[in-house]
């Protein structure tokens, strides 16, 4: 959690701002309770304006929180970790990466062909392979609802290597391992194909022409990241490719290209460099050269074509929304201050210092902004994560994005921060009000 925070300066800044605002608010409430009451009374005087400002802040904070969720997630997955990070081995010069299955033998610590140079650097739980199988449940209709895209892998690597599946029920993994034709499906995918656990499905392949599968749904993957995913056992897949060779008398065109990705886990950057050097220079991979990169670097390459659009969203859209929020607050507070100029002058006559008047106006604005921002972020967090099943914006390998817990700090800091900035000039003009000038205009 702390690592995550330190890795993201914007989130860190938001947490610092939030803490500072909360502490300042508490000090203000404890040292000047009467002032706090005055702030609340002032806000209640024009409920319409307070509500409109509050709503505008909430709407805009919700938008920024959702946009920043996408950016934050992409930032986090493309940020290099310092320890326990995953490496991905793929075909060096082209995508889709299609490697011969023998490539995995040299990198599998449990295989007799495992490269001896790698001993001690990769453990049995630090290895996983993926093949991708895409098919349709109805060969006459290629609709999204009928399409099924599966990770083909050894079930025993699911808990140890798949992101966020370390807590998957071991019984489910065992069931997948024991059921040769078993498949685990994400809840949304299950609903989309209108099937339940225990039912069977027939899949006509799109990428492995002629390798059609009959699968039994043995369980459900957890909701969230794996909503749309499917995992099947590599044993059945490999058997079917062998069967194809036996029945047709020739190997399937993709037989020797069936391996798409090999995942390894290493303890630190130094080990990564060593593993990379050994694997990339090994003669065993000469027929189909491979590259070794960190998962974050690999994902970064996939996301590169989106870089321009993401840059615009990060540096134009989000700042524009923040400026827009600031203007709305500035407008509301300046109207409020102008309407209360006489009152400000009276406060000065009663002995209130200019600094106190400044605090009073800033306090009003920040209370509305901070609370609206906090409320909006909490609502966004709950709605997106629990009711909507994430922000459905498929980009690269991410079907949906979930608001992190830090999102609440973003909302609070954004609401309070834009309110402070937007209300500063009006608050300054309230602070600088000249009593004689105001009373000379009073009729």
């Amino acid at each position, binding site marked *: 959690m702390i690592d995550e925070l330190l890795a993201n300066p914007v989130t860190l800044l938001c947490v610092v701002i939030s803490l500072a605002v909360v502490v300042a608010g508490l000090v203000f409430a404890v040292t000047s309770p009467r002032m706090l009451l005055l702030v609340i009374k002032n806000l209640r005087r024009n409920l*319409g*304006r307070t509500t*409109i*400002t509050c*709503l*505008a802040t909430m*709407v*805009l904070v*919700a*938008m920024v929180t959702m*946009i920043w969720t996408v950016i934050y997630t992409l930032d986090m997955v493309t940020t290099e970790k310092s320890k326990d990070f995953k490496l991905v081995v793929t075909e*060096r*010069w*082209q*995508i*889709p990466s299609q490697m011969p299955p023998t490539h995995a033998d040299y990198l599998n610590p449990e295989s007799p062909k495992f490269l001896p140079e790698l001993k001690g650097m990769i453990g049995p739980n630090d290895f996983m392979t993926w093949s991708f199988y*895409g098919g349709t449940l109805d060969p006459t209709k*290629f609709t*999204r609802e009928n*399409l099924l*895209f599966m990770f083909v892998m050894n079930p025993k690597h699911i808990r140890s290597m798949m992101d966020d599946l370390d807590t998957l029920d071991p019984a489910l993994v065992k069931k997948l391992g024991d059921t040769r034709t078993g498949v685990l499906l994400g809840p949304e995918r299950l609903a989309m194909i209108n099937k339940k656990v225990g039912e069977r499905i027939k899949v006509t*392949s*799109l*990428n492995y*022409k002629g390798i059609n599968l009959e699968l039994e749904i043995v369980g459900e993957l957890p909701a969230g990241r794996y909503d749309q995913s499917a995992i099947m056992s590599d044993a059945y897949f490999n058997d079917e490719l062998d069967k194809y060779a036996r029945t047709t008398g020739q190997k399937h*065109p993709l037989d020797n290209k069936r391996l798409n990705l090999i995942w390894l886990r290493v303890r630190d950057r130094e080990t990564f460099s060593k593993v990379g050097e050994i694997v990339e220079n090994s003669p065993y991979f000469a027929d*189909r050269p491979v*590259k070794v*990169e960190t998962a974050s*670097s690999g994902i*970064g*390459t*996939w*996301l*590169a*074509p*989106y870089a*321009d*659009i993401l840059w*615009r969203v990060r540096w*134009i*859209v989000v700042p*524009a*929304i923040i*400026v*827009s*929020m600031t*203007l*709305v607050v*500035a*407008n*509301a507070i*300046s*109207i409020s201050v102008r*309407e209360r100029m006489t009152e400000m002058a009276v406060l000065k006559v009663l002995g209130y210092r200019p600094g106190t008047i400044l605090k009073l106006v800033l306090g009003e604005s920040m209370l509305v902004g901070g609370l609206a921002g906090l409320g909006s972020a909490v609502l966004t967090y709950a*709605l997106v994560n629990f*009711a*909507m099943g994430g922000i459905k*914006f*498929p980009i690269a390998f991410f079907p949906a994005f979930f608001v992190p817990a830090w999102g609440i700090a973003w909302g609070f800091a954004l609401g309070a921060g834009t309110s402070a900035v937007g209300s500063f000039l009006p608050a300054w003009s309230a602070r600088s009000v000249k009593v004689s000038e105001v009373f000379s205009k009073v009729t």
Partner: protein
Amino acid sequence: MIVLFGFLLILGAILVVVVVASVLASVFAIGVAVAPVRKVPFRYNLRNIQVRWKTSLVAALAFTIVVCLLTNLLGFVKGMDRLTEGSGVPGNVLVLADGATDEAWSNLPTSSVLQLPRDLQLLIEKNKDGEFLATQEVYVIGTHVIPNAPAGGPKRRFVQMRGLDNVRIAAELHKIELESGEWFSSSGVREIARDHNGSTVKDTALEVVLGSGLAKTFGQDVGKAALEPGDVIEMGRRYWYITGVMKPNNSAFGSEIWTKDRTVQELFGRQNSYNSYVVRTKDEATAKQASKLLKEFRSERAMNAQSELEYYSNLTRTNQQFYIAFMVIAVVVAIGGVLGVMNTMFAAINQRKKDIGVLRILGYRRWQILASILFESLVIALVGGILGLILGYLITDGVSATSIVSSGQGGGKSIVFRAVVDATVLLTGLLFTFVMGAVGGLIPSLSAMRLKPLESLK
């Protein structure tokens, strides 16, 4: 979930009613403003805007930001749309392997038009030399190690490479012309002299033609505006000699490298296989007819034929995804702007209660007050909105960017495109401005209309 859906449905319905009512009321207000009927003088509204210039300016600025943002975002989607639409040539038929939804996943054997039945051959056009306008294309996505990659950024990029059996026919088929240089030779290789540790050594380079967008991307790697014919790049342990650069023609091919089919097949292990066949027919109707016949034709491998226009229009799924996301952002930000103008107008009415009372006593009717206030709100919105459109046009139109277009079923093409702010984008921005001004002004105008003359004069 059902409760949320119900809530959103009700909210949506209320919003639609408010928007429709606001637009109707605004049309009415504009009608009153231009019609020769008795109305509150427009000078009165102008004077009020002038008196409250600071809050009016801030409200207008909020509109400027929203509309500028919308113009910017829609300009990018429009650019992507133009590029995908421009990539398909009417009359062209694209043939992929059966089941393949994208070129990258397709695998076809070597073939020839002459293997097709006679009735199909008759549908295929010929060039002036009597050759069939048909090509076999091998398409791969290679990885390019970025020279001088900035720290923290990606070290590699994906590069789309198209191997062609006859580049001149392919260029004619895809309507691609060269901006500079020449097409690669029939051998596809040439000898180059390159620098190696200070001395010049001879090497063999593979000849390529670069798309204009890609020439710029590669050029930026080495500090040039764009690569030119004669430049050499290193990719996949081989040297690639650029013989020509394509003319920008707003198509996905501008983001590709074209080379000899053999080169791609040998380097990427695709011996004797292609990803697609493209043939030219007389027109779009004939293309559809030919697609149908090709699907029915039983060759060595079943084929998925479709008109090229159809194929590229399916690739706009990503564009639609961005379009929806950008519109959602724009609408939500607009709600913020609307609430801002609402605040301004409510404050204006609060300040002018007595004025409104006097106007009512002078005989102005409620609807005339409503029209006047609503018109004032529209003026503020339009001033801000038009400024936003101008600003959005200036910072968006013609700006180069990269993205991916895909059908959403795997694959896709990485593209370099130019953002386009055309009349549709400007009109959408203007419509947005009008609706925002109308919605922001309606409720304050209604409250002004309801003021009782004597009470407001107290």
